[in-house]
């Protein structure tokens, strides 16, 4: 492979490559204020909402955006470690704790939709309306199969909260944790003909691919509130507070509210802005 006459060129290439690599390493400086790193829940990315909001933001503010889509638990961790500048999350209790521990500097709910409890039509519960906590208690008492995200995401936190409110414990043999995102979890619940908790946005996207349908429930427990949090800038030198504030203000603006309100998937509105 290496005829002797090429070896000199190869050595030159090696040096070139090494220097390119090293240049790549320190091309960015510590106080780079042109970048904005956003940690967001997967539902906002997967629904396509960010593809509408972000271009509008960069029209005014010329930042190099990096969007890291993870579960709410992981997003809050990234904020706590100062790896990102701003967060979009949906777990009010965990957000309150995050703010109380002084990891965030500003916090504001900016849009909402709802969770839905889904079940296979074969396993339909009583047709009369139940509250969601009654439905959850019924699932636990009758040892019906339930598939959980199990990934510390906002939806998972909500599910645990609902089990708590229903004062019941799901039976271990009927309870499966996937540790995966909402889409994968929905598909697994669908295959297993199980119940699962899902955000309304992801459900609408998967509606045509699954047999699961919403269980007839009522009550305010299923509200799903999305908030934006700017990370405490004292954590390290990298945090771009100015950009984070601008993004925070943008999401709370009338312009963003209009985009959120008009955003549709398959002809259905997914989110309701909170700042009309």
């Amino acid at each position: 492979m290496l005829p002797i006459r090429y070896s000199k060129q190869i050595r030159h290439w090696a040096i070139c490559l090494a220097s390119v690599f090293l240049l790549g390493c320190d091309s960015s400086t510590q106080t780079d204020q042109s970048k904005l790193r956003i940690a967001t829940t997967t539902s906002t990315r997967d629904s396509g909402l960010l593809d509408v909001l972000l271009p509008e933001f960069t029209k005014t503010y010329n930042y190099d955006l990096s969007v890291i889509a993870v579960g709410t638990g992981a997003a809050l961790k990234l904020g706590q470690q100062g790896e990102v500048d701003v967060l979009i999350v949906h777990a009010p209790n965990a957000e309150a704790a995050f703010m109380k521990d002084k990891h965030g500097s500003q916090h504001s709910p900016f849009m909402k939709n709802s969770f839905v409890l889904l079940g296979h039509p074969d396993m339909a519960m009583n047709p009369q309306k139940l509250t969601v906590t009654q439905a959850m208690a019924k699932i636990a008492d009758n040892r019906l199969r339930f598939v959980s995200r199990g990934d510390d995401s906002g939806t998972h936190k909500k599910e645990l909260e609902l089990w708590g409110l229903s004062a019941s414990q799901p039976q271990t043999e009927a309870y499966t944790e996937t540790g995966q995102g909402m889409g994968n979890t929905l598909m697994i619940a669908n295959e297993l003909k199980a119940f699962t908790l899902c955000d309304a946005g992801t459900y609408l996207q998967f509606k045509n691919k699954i047999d699961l349908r919403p269980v007839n429930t009522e009550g305010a427990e299923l509200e799903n509130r999305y908030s934006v949090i700017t990370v405490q800038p004292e954590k390290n030198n990298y945090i771009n507070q100015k950009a984070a504030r601008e993004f925070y203000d943008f999401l709370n603006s009338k312009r963003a509210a209009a985009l959120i309100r008009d955003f549709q998937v398959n002809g259905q509105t997914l989110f309701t802005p909170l700042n009309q």
Partner: protein
Amino acid sequence: MEMILSGITEAIQLLVSGDALVFDAAWRSIWVSTTAVLIATILGISIGTLLARRRFLGRGLLVTLFRGLMGVPTVLIGLIGYALLARQGPLGTLELLYTPWGIVLGEVILAVPIITSLTHGGIKNLDRRIPETARMLGAGPVQRWKTYLSEARLPIILAILTAFARCFTELGIAMMVGGNLKFKTRTLSTSTTLETARGEFSRAVAMSLILLAIAICITVVIALVSREDES
């Protein structure tokens, strides 16, 4: 089955329509793994020859270590890479987390043990008369090294191919160190995972088929280029 068939159709459509996401991810997969394998080749061949031809204390231990590292899981490299490159980590100042260069770094770590161990094996297996003859003919150390490489070229090419196959298709490093950022660190393998999570199954099948097609093409090209050596 229907999913795979519609995936094939979708793959062709995506390629024909010049889908920006597909081409971006494909190009990134190619350049990230190629760069990583080039760097790892330089490192691995040097270390491999050294281990095969020089005697020093702890050599046996190093050989075992590199062989052991051939099986290192990519998720572990991803995790360690994340811990090292995070802003709070020891290499945080390099700002390589969530960049393609971060993935390159992780893939170099993945590829070096493979190339080192296979190069070491190849040179170790050379006919004993080759180094003796070279030395008798008065070849200096550099010339002897070139002789070993040219005599062991087949195992070395296989080493590079193996490393490339592993880097090009890996998911753990790209996901954890790269973060699957759209138009920044998204590769064909992270795209496949993402499209599956989104329920876009035919797109996911399409992405992985494109990954497969490119992997086969590059392997075939390398094999063709080096075919003369096998005769």
